[in-house]
């Protein structure tokens, strides 16, 4: 950062750019086909500029209607979706139940075989989440009328969970355009590269998944024509986010799509053409134990006591984040402040290890710790942790591998410890926690108390009850330590001062994209 910023903003771009708003991201876009959603935020946002989901989370972590005006349930098994009466496609065709049914059917078609999410909990689908090949409907998804759809699930599901996964990730696509396309051609369908009809605020003009997407405003957007006519997404390296912001090549960086390097935080803040925003802390750096390999609870506890998370937070994250135990971060409705995170206690850790030794633990064990090489901050933290653990007599071997390898290792269980950046959505911890703390999940940790508590969250709509259930889960996690929450990141978002009405945050940044404006 330093002095150079005082010399004023250096703008290497020519003035033709001024009416284009560029969003800088540091991850490539896997696809622009909503059926190919791969779980990355980048793909979700890039595609939902065109195709809206039923609902979306806003800054306050409340669900706001997109296509749906509301989703309700009475018994946590049947969910009623009311489609916004104003909702229309860009060709002025109204968005109807047909479109919703069609979109759900696509996700359940074995010919398409979507792997972004399987909807196996919906009545009428198999264990794999697919209907019989050739089916033209899912029995659990029915149209009540033109603007109302009813979905029945096999087991109980909290409304927030329903909304979070089915509501947010299934983007509604136009049946009247795509209805006749054979299902096995949907994924490679060229139409998605240049859709003629969209429901969202923007429509793709040109793209190169590894480098950029440029959008044009959908003048018929039912929530109002976007004020910015040209929007674009630009893929750069994390370090270039800073240069891009400084030079004006980038107007906005959102926390989950663009990962501004920790080292650059100060520099970004110092840019005088830029306003920065601290994101809601939700992305956690989780360290999972393979509890089948690291069986001794005392040893796992020793790891927890032996790491000085405060120092890490201060030094590596420059204080941008928080420390909690368990899955829930302070944001969101279910957080229970009564769970006080374990404090760094070297002596306690040593003592725990002594006890473990007495129980037959072999102190010469070297633990394989897998770390994502793409996460530059945590690779450094891992080195730091290795040094810290060494002090209490725990030997770990840090293996820095790329994400694919990490995932393969995670799946095969060939690890002792594994660190992954994981966003637990505050309103729906269930989906992730339930999977992670199971025989098939990464921790391979099974505990009936936890399972029951998690199930409890799904059968009630009472926030206090849910909070209580999650408290049980988190306190078990704190004592049994199948997972350590190293820190919760509050990412840095940034916005050019010429851009009005936009606020980069973890959730809801793009809900009002049609109102964005250039000064």
């Amino acid at each position, binding site marked *: 950062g330093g002095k150079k910023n005082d010399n004023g903003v250096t703008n290497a771009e020519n003035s033709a750019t001024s009416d284009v708003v560029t969003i800088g991201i540091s991850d490539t876009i896997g696809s622009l086909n909503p059926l190919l959603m791969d779980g990355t935020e980048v793909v979700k946002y890039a595609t939902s500029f065109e195709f809206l989901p039923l609902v979306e989370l806003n800054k306050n972590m409340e669900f706001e209607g997109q296509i749906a005006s509301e989703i309700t349930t009475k018994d946590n098994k049947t969910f009623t979706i009311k489609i916004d009466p104003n909702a229309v496609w860009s060709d002025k065709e109204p968005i109807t139940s047909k479109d919703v049914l069609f979109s759900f059917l696509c996700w359940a078609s074995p010919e398409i075989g979507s792997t972004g999410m399987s909807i196996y909990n919906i009545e009428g689908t198999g264990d794999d989440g697919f209907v019989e090949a050739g089916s033209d409907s899912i029995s659990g998804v029915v149209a009540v009328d033109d603007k109302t759809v009813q979905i029945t699930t096999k087991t109980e599901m909290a409304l927030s969970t329903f909304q979070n996964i089915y509501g947010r990730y299934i983007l509604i696509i136009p049946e009247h355009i795509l209805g006749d396309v054979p299902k096995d051609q949907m994924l490679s369908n060229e139409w998605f590269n240049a859709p003629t009809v969209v429901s969202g605020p923007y429509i793709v003009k040109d793209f190169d998944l590894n480098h950029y997407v440029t959008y044009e405003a959908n003048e018929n957007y039912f929530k109002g024509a976007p004020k910015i006519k040209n929007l674009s997404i630009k893929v750069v390296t994390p370090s270039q986010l*800073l240069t891009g912001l400084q030079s004006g090549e980038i107007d906005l960086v959102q926390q989950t799509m663009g990962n501004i390097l920790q080292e650059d935080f*100060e*520099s970004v803040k110092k840019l005088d053409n830029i306003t920065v925003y601290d994101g809601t802390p939700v992305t956690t750096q989780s360290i999972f134990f393979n509890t089948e390999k690291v069986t001794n609870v005392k040893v796992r506890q020793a790891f927890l006591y032996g790491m000085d998370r405060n120092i890490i937070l201060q030094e590596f994250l420059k204080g941008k984040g928080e420390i909690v135990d368990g899955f829930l971060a302070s944001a969101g409705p279910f957080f229970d402040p009564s769970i006080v995170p374990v404090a760094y206690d070297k002596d306690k850790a040593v003592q725990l290890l002594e006890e473990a030794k007495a129980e037959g633990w072999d102190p010469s064990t070297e633990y394989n710790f897998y770390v994502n090489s793409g996460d530059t901050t945590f690779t450094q*933290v891992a080195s*730091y942790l290795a040094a810290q653990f060494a002090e209490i007599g725990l030997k770990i071997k*840090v*293996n*820095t591998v790329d994400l*694919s390898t990490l995932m393969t290792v995670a799946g095969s269980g060939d690890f002792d410890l594994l660190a992954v950046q994981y966003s637990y959505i505050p309103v729906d911890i269930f989906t992730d926690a339930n999977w992670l703390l199971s025989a098939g999940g990464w921790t391979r940790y099974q505990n009936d108390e936890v399972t029951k508590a998690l199930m409890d969250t799904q059968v009630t709509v009472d926030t206090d009850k849910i909070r209580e259930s999650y408290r049980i889960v988190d306190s078990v996690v704190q004592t049994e330590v199948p997972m350590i929450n190293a820190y919760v990141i509050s990412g840095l978002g940034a916005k050019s001062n010429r851009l009005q009405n936009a606020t980069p945050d973890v959730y809801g940044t793009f809900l009002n994209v049609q109102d964005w404006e250039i000064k």
Partner: protein
Amino acid sequence: MEHKGNMQRVTKRFMKHKLAVVSLIFLLIMIILAILAPVIAPYNPNQVSGGFSKPPSMDHLLGTDQIGRDMLSRLLYAMRISLFVGAAATVISTLIGVILGLLSGFIGGVVDSIIMRITDMVMSFPYILLVLVAAAVFEPGLWSIVLILGFVDWPGVARLVRGNVLSIREMNYIKADIAAGMPKRFILFSEILPNTIAPVFVYATQVFAISILDEAALSFLGMGVQPPTASLGNILNGAESITVLTSKFWLWVPAGVLIVLLVISINFVGDALRDALDPSV
């Protein structure tokens, strides 16, 4: 027993390249430093011994890195790793290259064609692509980098040796050996091999330089030597941030300069060796 007279001649000619002499001295010092790293490094390279990203001070002559490890110690160890990777990769590729080249040139015929086709293949692999794929596939680690780099560089050596063997085979002293009824192994190992060593040696210096650069590039891309093990490339990896680049010079300048100096010295030495070993002068 390499003869004194010959060695003297080579040494004398080498000495005329002043830059090369300076480079050689520099390299030797660096190699000694690298070997002695455990003894002379002020700190354990993986131990957090000071503040985070602190500029150079009396305690830490080159400052500390992002997690408070002593930069000087890390640099010494990094150099050790980089030199090791370079040297080991060079040894491997040179060995493979020499063996295949000798076989190819001496036996000829089908063996030659097969070896040359394989050489073509390896040479036609877009080289860093192969390295990248392999680095992503095989678990990244010191030895896999060494093996990958070693595997990638041998075709050049093989071709060089083969060419040499083919031309030496036509030399009259080989004919004289055949006429004197000397056995094949004598001709191969006692006559042909020693005469190809000099150019191979010169070539090996280039491979050495390239291997160090490649290791650095791979580590920089996060596919090479993995942290916490320090290598010159992955130290530089930390400098990708513009902030570090502009305001924390001690985190990247020493490593960058060291790579450049090591590689350029090796190149200078290799160049001078080529001159000194050239039998035609």
